[in-house]
């Protein structure tokens, strides 16, 4: 018997709702905005569930979530520099001082959250997709719509920045 689309949606897509919402939380940086974006993305996924190939809907769903978040952020105004960023510009400061390995390792949740929030969107999304969702470079490349080589360089730069942010912090006043 052929599964009707909603059954397929419930079986294949809905189990990844938390992953979708988690990605939206990291990209939108706001609970309310994340809920709105997740709802819109899930409804899009419901309507287009036929286009989801294979048995693992997660990368496909996360791509929809990611695009929806970008649309929301762009609509809100790219003037904040959330969406577009100059990769060269964002690496200029990274070589300044060598961060402290022990400090990085000991980072607490609050420090990690602030460091991630400080990352430009293009860096933040590759970190979340890799470290939290455990996706392959190829899957991330498809979701972020960039070549695999760009995923690799963005990840490297994002991690350089995180190390700078975490490895230089001295309590709460270590910023800046």
């Amino acid at each position, binding site marked *: 018997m052929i599964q*009707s*689309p*909603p059954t397929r*949606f*419930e079986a294949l897509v*809905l189990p990844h*709702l*938390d*992953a*979708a*919402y*988690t990605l939206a*939380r990291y990209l939108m940086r706001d609970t309310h*905005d*994340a*809920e*709105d974006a*997740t*709802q*819109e993305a*899930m*409804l*899009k996924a*419901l*309507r287009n569930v036929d286009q989801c190939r294979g048995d693992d809907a997660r990368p496909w769903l996360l791509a929809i979530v990611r695009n929806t978040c970008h*649309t929301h952020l762009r*609509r809100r105004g790219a003037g904040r520099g959330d969406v577009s960023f100059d990769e060269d510009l964002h690496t200029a400061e990274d070589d300044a001082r*060598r*961060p402290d*390995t*022990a400090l*990085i*390792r*000991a*980072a*607490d*949740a609050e*420090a*990690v*959250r602030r460091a*991630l929030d400080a990352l430009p969107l293009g860096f933040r999304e590759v*970190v*979340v997709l*890799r*470290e*939290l969702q455990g996706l*392959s*470079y190829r899957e991330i490349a498809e979701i972020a719509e960039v070549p695999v080589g760009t995923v*690799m*360089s963005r*990840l*490297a730069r994002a*991690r350089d920045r*995180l*190390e700078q942010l*975490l*490895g230089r912090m001295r309590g709460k006043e270590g910023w800046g």
Partner: protein
Amino acid sequence: MNCDDVRTRLDARLDGELAAGEIEAVDAHMEHCADCKALQERRIALHDALVREMPRFAAPDALRQELVRSAREAPKAHERATRRMSSGWGLALAASLAIVAVGSWQLATTRANGEMLTQTLLESHVRSLIGEHLTDVVSSDLHTVKPWFNGQLDFSPPVYDFAGRGYPLLGGRLEYVGERKVAALVYGRRKHVINVFLWPADAGMPQGPPAATRHGYHLLHWNGPDFTYWVVSDLGTAELQEFAGLLKDADLAAAAPPTSQ
């Protein structure tokens, strides 16, 4: 391999993404380069910290339930839409749903068959919300929006500003339902968009059900003294009903002679 070569490959090496032929060279370099070794250790420390401290979030229960409901409604909505394509209100509903992003309506009618049509219309509904063509006239001033329709339509649509009630006017645009030009007024509610479609009540247009839900979008429909209304939004039904009530009250107030009661 020199340090630069290794640094551009280190992340791929740690992520298990490096080509097999290069792994050995990277690892060999680590043996005798303290700087690269230190970088590798920072990367491992960072990975440990991230995996340990990055929370995963649980989606709100209400959202999950809403999605289950939408998923179960979808096949029924699809059947109904297919069955009603031959009758009048199916077309009216389809047209309203689409907010008739003009071209896609033409496309939709020519492709008039079941799933494709439903899919296309719902898709263009969402597109009009996130796309650029939400409004032809962008203004929260009803004295800007209302005159804009002069010469565009053979009727003057009532335009209200409910900003004080939390439903600010965002603008308006022209739409087509079939061959008929109609008014589309856009109101906001927090970050939600409400589209109000209206045309003269005596225009001889098909009628529809008073309330419907399609894929999580809610539609309300009624006939006022002078105009036929369709209201479409992803807003919850309670708030959408409240908004519809504001429109009905405002129409009644406008129609009543100032001296009566």
